[in-house]
């Protein structure tokens, strides 16, 4: 039996059989990397004060059109991720993230004509808790270690259709599966610079005869205060120069229990950016550039990812 994703691309043109599953890596990475709180491409161990609420809104543009397969796929994702964090206690913070994504996939259809398939709407919600297990505070600096655990819940529609039939799984707004994830974050911050490192793992589960490959990632961030060069009392706004790196590995997906050879792989992204930080709000922007990509088969490679956004303290 062929599932809906496979059927879509298998008839009548066999060469596009794996187009849907191949895209999973791209879209899954979009959602997973965006749905966390900070620095800009992942989380941070810095505290959310007890009773405090932090809102983060991040706008995304992602493009992947360097397709060498005959399908000449061109994927564009625009969207926004809303993240709300709440300090339940001194050490325990709860986060919820909800993406809104507009996904467009252009590809050559069975008759050689160019077709577009797309979806737009809210995606699956991610809920997670972060606990500060260790902290070492000193004047003007802090070091923290915080594990986090959560789940990506199937809160949105995973059976969207267009005139060609059921959308391939990567274009669906929801995955239909409960996907637990966890990891640990280390943060070292001084008045001059900040270093963050994170390891995270997401174990994806099956839904609709489809299972995304599990994902492991190692992230690093360096933020250096560019302005003001000298501090002169009070709480001035800080302008940080940012350099982040993401090493992401995703296992192959499974369709009807069989591994898809054209899915998953490993990516290294390097990302320069800027961040302006005040007491109540932060504005930030970063460009993620794929530096090395080793994807399986004909899985799509990223071209560029841009993120801009803001955070507000309540």
């Amino acid at each position, binding site marked *: 039996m062929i599932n809906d994703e496979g059927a879509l691309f298998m008839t009548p043109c066999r060469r596009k059989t794996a187009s849907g599953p191949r895209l999973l890596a791209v879209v899954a990475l979009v959602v997973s990397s965006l749905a966390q709180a900070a620095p800009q491409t992942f989380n941070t161990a810095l505290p959310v*004060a007890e009773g405090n609420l932090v809102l983060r809104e991040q706008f995304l543009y992602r493009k992947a059109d360097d397709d060498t397969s005959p399908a000449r796929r061109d994927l564009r994702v625009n969207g926004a991720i809303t993240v709300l964090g709440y300090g339940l206690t001194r050490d325990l913070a709860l986060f919820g993230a909800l993406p809104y994504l507009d996904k467009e996939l252009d590809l050559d259809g069975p008759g050689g004509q160019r077709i577009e398939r797309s979806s737009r709407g809210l995606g699956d919600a991610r809920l997670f808790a972060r606990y500060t297990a260790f902290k070492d505070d000193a004047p*003007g600096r802090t070091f923290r270690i915080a594990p986090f655990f959560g789940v990506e819940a199937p809160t949105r529609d995973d059976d969207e259709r267009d005139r060609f039939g059921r959308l391939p799984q990567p274009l669906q707004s929801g995955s239909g599966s409960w996907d637990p994830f966890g990891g640990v974050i280390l943060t070292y911050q001084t008045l001059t610079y900040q270093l963050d490192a994170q390891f995270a793992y997401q174990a994806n589960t099956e839904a609709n005869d489809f299972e995304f490959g599990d994902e492991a990632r190692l992230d690093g961030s360096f933020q250096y205060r560019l302005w003001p060069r000298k501090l002169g009392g009070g709480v*001035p706004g800080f302008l940080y120069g940012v350099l982040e790196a993401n090493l992401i590995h995703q296992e192959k997906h499974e369709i009807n229990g069989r591994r898809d050879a054209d899915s998953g792989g490993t990516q290294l992204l390097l990302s320069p950016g800027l961040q302006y930080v005040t007491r109540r709000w932060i504005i930030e922007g970063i460009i993620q550039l794929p530096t090395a990509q080793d994807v399986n088969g004909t899985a799509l490679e990223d071209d560029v990812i841009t993120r801009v956004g803001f955070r507000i303290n309540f």
Partner: protein
Amino acid sequence: MTSKIHALLLALVAAVISTAAMAAGPRYQVEVDGLACPFCAYGIEKQLGNIQGVKNLETDIEAGRVIVTMEEGHTLDESRAELAVDRAGFTLGGFEPLDAPGTTHDQ
């Protein structure tokens, strides 16, 4: 005439300032270890600001300290300041009354 108006305004401003100064209570220096960015300063200020009787807060992020000015008739004890700093996710590095008179009413 102009000079008289200026003198009157100056006297008025001086009166307002002195009244405000007299209404202010004791001040305390709260040293916060781990404070290293402006976004985190908000959490400290919010927790200290929730203490009853706090009139004003002045944060110096470079020095890692907050000067807490209480309303007249209120004082701040170290344990309450420590609790506020702790709830903000930081560590109390020091606590020092700056010019606290012998008021009796605690928050």
